[in-house]
């Protein structure tokens, strides 16, 4: 037969966006009934709008090929993977898939905190499409990979987050599908763990299985994939070998390490034009724990403004805010800005953070008075480990941050 693993033809996915405030995706009967009564009289007042998350996407993947998919948040990468793993249906077009698909859109799907490590291995394995016999056969391998031998009969809610992630990835890594679909799961955990995961992914690709891989980690894309697609606003804009695609992605300035926006926001007093993360003066998405990251925020003021505050939140990928900071923290009480363009810089020492992926969300307001601007897309970066105690001592530990403290020892 042909050597095609996946053929995607004119695939599109539309979502209905409701513009009514505070309305959830599911409806109550009451709303539906009232809507049905109103509809004949107010056809034009229906505020629902169609949003194409994916539009007219076509490509082929050969058997044994490792295809990277990159693009900004919201470009349609996850929607594409969800369609290929049959979680949601396309609105138009179709995809032909030849072979069993194993999808890994999240590490630890279905893990239940009350169940033990052993029970979760079976549960998670079955959810990912393994049979009980498959799991039994690979059980010891999974346990060894996860390094949780002594905690098999402990509920996973008592696991450290490192153990939890290792176990979750271990189950997934031992799936044996012909086509593996992976979404950004390697961005969690410590550097050691990431290295292990990337190694495992490399093995899978080398075994001749087909891999579809979404990541913000450009170096992982280049090292794992032969070919990569760049998605922009739901369409494929570049389809080339991995390094070509990555470099054109970097050139477009659309990287998640930077956020740029059309300046034209009529009637707004203050607009945040650009947010960038700098490493040694260069925009970067990858930082090391020994680095200093500089958050650079450019904003434009249309009029003289007193008390404008520019702030950012520093969050984990699980939306846990580690801290937030504002320009008023040091510049002083209620600075007065004249109309014009400004650049704010804020350096952050990264040594106290755990390796992993983080996001920075920027907003501006006059505290207690009004919201001036909220940057809708967070700026993301990967923090890799080159100096943390975890790396030095080779032991994982609990905690959202990982400060190195000045211990001293003296004889009494």
């Amino acid at each position: 037969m042909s050597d095609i693993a996946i053929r995607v033809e004119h695939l599109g996915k539309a979502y209905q966006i409701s513009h009514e405030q505070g309305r959830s995706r599911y409806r109550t009967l009451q709303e539906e009934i009232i809507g049905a009564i109103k509809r004949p009289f107010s056809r034009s007042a229906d505020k629902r709008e169609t949003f194409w998350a994916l539009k007219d996407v076509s490509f082929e993947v050969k058997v044994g090929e490792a295809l990277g998919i990159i693009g900004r948040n919201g470009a349609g990468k996850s929607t594409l993977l969800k369609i290929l793993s049959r979680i949601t249906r396309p609105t138009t077009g179709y995809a032909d898939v030849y072979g069993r698909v194993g999808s890994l859109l999240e590490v630890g799907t279905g893990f239940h905190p009350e169940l033990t490590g052993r029970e979760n291995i079976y549960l998670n394995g079955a959810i990912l499409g393994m049979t009980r016999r498959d799991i039994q056969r690979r059980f010891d391998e999974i346990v060894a990979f996860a390094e949780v031998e002594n905690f098999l009969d402990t509920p996973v809610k008592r696991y450290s987050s490192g153990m939890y992630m290792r176990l979750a990835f271990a189950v997934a890594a031992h799936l044996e599908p012909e086509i593996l679909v992976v979404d950004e799961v390697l961005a969690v955990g410590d550097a050691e763990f990431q290295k292990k995961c990337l190694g495992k992914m490399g093995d899978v690709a080398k075994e001749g299985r087909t891999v579809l891989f979404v990541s913000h980690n450009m170096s992982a894309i280049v090292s794992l994939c032969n070919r990569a697609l760049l998605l922009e606003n739901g369409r494929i804009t570049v389809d080339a070998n991995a390094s070509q695609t990555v470099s054109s992605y970097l050139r477009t300035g659309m990287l998640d390490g930077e956020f740029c926006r059309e300046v034209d926001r009529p009637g707004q007093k203050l607009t945040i034009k650009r947010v960038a993360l700098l490493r040694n003066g260069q925009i970067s998405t990858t930082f090391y724990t020994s680095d200093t990251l500089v958050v650079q925020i450019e904003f434009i003021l249309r009029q003289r403004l007193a008390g404008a505050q520019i702030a950012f939140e520093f969050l984990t990928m699980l939306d846990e805010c580690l801290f937030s900071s504002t320009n008023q923290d040091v510049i002083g009480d209620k600075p007065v800005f004249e109309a014009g363009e400004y650049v704010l810089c804020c350096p952050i020492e990264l040594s106290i953070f755990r390796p992993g992926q983080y996001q920075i969300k920027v907003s501006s307001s006059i505290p207690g008075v009004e919201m001036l601007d909220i940057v809708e897309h967070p700026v993301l970066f990967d923090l890799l480990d080159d100096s943390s105690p975890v790396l030095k001592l080779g032991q994982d530990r609990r905690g959202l941050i990982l400060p190195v403290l000045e211990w001293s020892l003296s004889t009494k």
Partner: protein
Amino acid sequence: MVYRSARHLRIQPESLWFPLDFRELWAFRDLFVILALRDVKLRYKQTLLGVTWVILQPLVASLIFTIIFSRIASLPSDGKPYLLFVYAGMLPWNFFAGCLQRAGNSLISDAKLITKVYFPRVIIPIASSAAVLMDFAVAFVVMVGLLFVYRDEVSVTWNILALPFLLLVVLLLSIGVSLFLSALNVYYRDFMYALPFVVQVWMYASPLVYSASMVPDRWRVIYALNPMSGVIDGFRWALLGMPNFPWLSMSLSILIGCLFFLGGAYTFQRVESRFADVV
């Protein structure tokens, strides 16, 4: 989904009608077992009495009914001890009500699975029902104990051999209604709020605390349209050795059970493909 060969799958916009894919369900049978076991294990984790609850719930309810409806209201129980009479009816009723409650909410409580991984969605509500079957088994053991305690007043007859068949009828009915409820619950959370109320009304409309013989003749047919009347009468007939098999209500139960099952499966299939976008 269209299979051209064993290895080929076409993913395309939803078709209007496609039947249950039994080959695929069979391929996911282990997931079904593991999900059902998960529900059973999780149910009584971190409870002091654990499985004892499964025994206590129907037993205490039966005792309360006995005090209120037999001692105080003096309802007749077709010549059998009222406790046995009500407990035998409660076996299928609790299974039915348990399925509605657990399976009805199952898709929402497993929303994380639905949005992250593919498997035939129908496994989720059916696995929840299977977990309720465990409760039924435990409650049945208590029934055997009660029959032993009352061995002087009620003798076990060959009727009891009809039980597996009767169980099949309740299963058909419960799963059918659960499929309806679980699917609609994803779209309209109203069902979640209406359910406890509906279950209670349905219980009093069924011959659980009273005997079918108390229903006036002219209401018989309408009364038998409630598929649970046939089932409850059938269980009593099998367990307590009642003289007359409830032919009318039982045939209607089977018929309505099949209709519910087919209708539920059809509704479920129709809305299944959009779960991940809505839940």
